[in-house]
């Protein structure tokens, strides 16, 4: 079981806080919208990922438990 990042592209309004708080996984494209390089979040990054998800003003970034095996 791991945690996965998921983006709600409708809610996302390119505030960009997620990329500031989780640069290991998220960069911004030329329009300011997030590019998630790898959705899987290892345990070492889980605290930062959670903070990034909580910081999103529009709840666009979601951190979900995932039962899929990678």
């Amino acid at each position, binding site marked *: 079981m791991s945690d996965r990042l998921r983006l709600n*592209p409708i*809610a996302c*309004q*390119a505030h960009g806080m997620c990329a500031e708080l989780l640069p290991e996984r998220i960069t911004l494209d030329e*329009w300011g*919208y997030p590019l998630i390089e790898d959705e899987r979040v290892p345990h070492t990054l889980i605290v930062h990922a959670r903070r990034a998800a909580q910081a999103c003003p529009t709840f666009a970034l979601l951190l979900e438990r995932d039962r899929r095996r990678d």
Partner: protein
Amino acid sequence: MSRATPALGRAAGRAVDSGLPRLLAGVDGHGGMSLREHLATHGELPGERSHRRREAPLIELLEHAGLRGRGGAGFPTAKKLRAVASARRRAIVVINAAEGEPASLKDRTLCELTPHLMLDGGQLAAQAVGADELIVCVGESSPDSLDSVAEAIAERRGLPGAPARVHLSVVPSGYLAGQESALVSHLNGGPAIPRFTPPMPFEQGVRRRPTLVSNAETLAHIALIARHGSAWFRVLGVGSQPGSALLTLSGAVADPGVYEIEHGASLASVVAAAGGASGRVRAALVGGYAGTWIDGGLLNGVALSDEHLAPHGAALGAGVVVLLSAHACPVAETVRVASWLAEQGAGQCGPCLNGLNALAATLEQLLQGAAQGNSVRRIERLASLTRGRGACGHPDGAVRFVLSAVRVFSEEFADHARHGPCDACARPAELALPVDPRAGRLRGDPVPVA
């Protein structure tokens, strides 16, 4: 091959291949078939079997038949019904005849000429998933379809086995209005634009109830499979995609219109049945305006099933084929459609809105010979930035359309990059686009609905 002509009421209805027509059986172009005519043509609806059990044998039947959705996504129908049937709350069935794809006329055809088929399918599906409500969604730009379906619904009042509530919902025009979550949003009183999923409509849809959204043609097939069985369905078609399908053939062909084919039929045979190509064909657009271009030289070897189209990077989608004549400027056509696709986006998702607009702008520059730097590389980069980053499949389709155009028409694109507009640029459009949704008219050379 058999065909139907909704608007002008002319129909061929000739069975070229044995086993066809199936969906278009009995269609004679004198308006829609009445309930009596429908029952005379197809036989009685199978009795209400085990309507108390949530999972009726219908679902098993559909599983053996291998029916897949005909709205464009091709999702296995039995799987969808099973998912809705297994939900706790009482389900709702939605017949999706919204048909936002400009080059598609098949759902309109079903609505106007043989509405009882899809209504039968809707009724059967409702029984199978335990739904008490059936909603038929028809686009506002098809007044004839609306009238025909309303009449058919009225005719069926009191029919045994009908769901408690059957009603019509008018869907606003728009390319995305028929998208599954957009349709559900509209039915919930919101705008007809896609919503974020999950939860999927089959889990939480109209009024938060599990909702089966099925294309009109899919349900029409269900009506026949229920009557004749899964083995019958599989007599036509190919293993990976059994059965028949409705195809809208338009563009540089003598008799454009809706044809019923079996999956795997050669494109050449359909074009022949449509009176042959009206001149040299530069390329074919397969799958709709968000589909894939296939070079004219390859068309003789093209067969109409996903399995056979895959090597060309294409899929049958909602059964749309448009033939582009050699007279047209493929670059101008591509630019026109790409701009339209960008306009038709819901504008909700940044990457789609920005990406499709940037793609359209780059293409326009290329068309005018005002391209800066390597446009093709820019287009490819924009495509990779746009693909898969929306809430629905719209950006993916638009990107697929543009990339296949750049590939198939590489020569013409290179010409335009160097020299700007060509003589053919000024010609009227061959890929028609809706301009006045309320009137249901198309701009550019009218695609004859005959």
